[in-house]
């Protein structure tokens, strides 16, 4: 961060009651906090039918190459390939349902209000990792029309990524800024900026592609899902290096009249 000498602004700890209320309100969001884990589970589940398909197909190949005339066996394997393909499709459909909710769930709202709601969870997460989380919320921003839970999922996921990116940084230099500000054309921007090492230039181009990850246990789906959520809102999610070498993710959303 640019102000390393300044002590972290005091943050109010949410009371247990507040936290509980928050968690209840954001049941979906708490699920999102573990989006990465969930994605890892889905990746694991997808691996099963894919493994089976590859093995069945190769077995058919071998059987035919050896001149097998057991057509029943080969047909059975081919039918299994079909079934496993459908099984994989079903898993992906579930994944899609997870990130897509009908447009009717979208309401006009103020982005700062969304951030205020998830602040408690974000701060708790940051504190658990000895990270200073600073909120810089611009007043009087244009209103946006969004699925509140989905956008909160995206923001929390960005904060979680930022917090995790700071693991290699000494605790006194672990800073994350969550900022809202007006963007061009009356759009609204939410930026999550960290003081970590930044994204490896080698993977910047593929950063939002599924299964690209820098985490030992990540599935590499968090940013891919986040971006698809944002694009469904006719917004954008971009990465740029932060001034001090860290990472900066900018979420831009159209204002209420400009969107859908």
């Amino acid at each position, binding site marked *: 961060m640019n102000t390393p000498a300044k002590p972290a602004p005091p943050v109010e700890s949410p009371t247990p009651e507040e936290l509980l209320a928050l968690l209840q309100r954001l049941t979906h969001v708490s699920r999102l906090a573990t989006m990465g884990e969930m994605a890892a589970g889905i*990746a694991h589940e997808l691996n*099963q039918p894919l*493994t089976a398909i*590859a*093995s069945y197909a*190769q077995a058919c190949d*071998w059987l035919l190459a050896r001149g097998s005339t057991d057509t029943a066996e080969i047909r059975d*394997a081919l039918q*299994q390939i079909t*079934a496993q393909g459908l099984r994989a499709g079903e898993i992906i459909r579930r994944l899609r349902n997870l990130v897509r909710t009908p447009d009717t769930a979208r309401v006009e709202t103020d982005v700062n209000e969304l951030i205020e709601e998830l602040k408690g969870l974000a701060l708790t997460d940051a504190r658990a990792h000895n990270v200073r989380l600073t909120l810089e919320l611009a007043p009087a921003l244009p209103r946006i029309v969004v699925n509140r839970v989905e956008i909160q999922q995206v923001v929390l996921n960005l904060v979680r990524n930022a917090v995790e990116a700071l693991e290699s940084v000494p605790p006194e230099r672990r800073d994350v800024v969550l900022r809202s500000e007006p963007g061009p054309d009356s759009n609204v921007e939410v930026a999550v900026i960290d003081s970590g090492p930044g994204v490896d230039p080698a993977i910047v181009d593929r950063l939002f592609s599924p299964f690209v990850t820098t985490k030992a246990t990540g599935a590499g789906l968090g940013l891919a899902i986040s971006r698809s959520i944002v694009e469904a809102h006719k917004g954008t999610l971009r990465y740029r290096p932060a001034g001090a070498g860290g990472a900066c993710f900018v979420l831009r959303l159209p204002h209420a009249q400009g969107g859908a």
Partner: protein
Amino acid sequence: MTKDAQALVFVVDDDEAVRSSTKLLLKSVGLPAVTFASAQEFLDNYDPQQPGCVVLDVRMPLMSGLELQQLLNMRGAIIPVIFITGHGDIPMAVEAMQHGAFDFLQKPFRDQDLLDRVQKALEKDRVNRAQLREKARIRERRDSLTPREREILELMTRGKPNKVMAADLGVSQRTVEIHRARVMEKMGATSLAQLVRMVMDLDQSRDTGSSFRELAR
């Protein structure tokens, strides 16, 4: 133990599709496979005498692949285990290797990678079992020696000349010579060097005593 028992590939995976597709893949290249839906099912049917190798899913409900490996290790099993891991399971794979796994593969795997590893594991199992059988044979022969013959064997492997042995045991050199010939005959050794090697192999196998017992039972 029949020397020519057909080697089997034991596939342990909780996913039915992975299990049967792996079995068919192995079968399509002429490798007979038996499948198990859980680690427990495999253990219940486990026969230490049966040559083969295990293709084991690391991540299963109830008993994981790693737990099964530990139980097999405790039983002194020598059967090679190839672990199948999913995305992000590398720490588990490392642990499995540290505990003596033969190899590991990530899902979804290339068929050739699996087949290569299975072939190598079966070859390893074959060599291991042949060595243990040979040791069991030598041990049986040594056990057939009389107490006096065992004394002679002990002195022979320490390189004592007949004259010294005769003095040590308080018998004539001629008697030593007769015992010597009997020891060589009973042990099936054609030279002193071969005899010494046999006894050394046996002494080494004390380290793998449990594996030995498993086969020699």
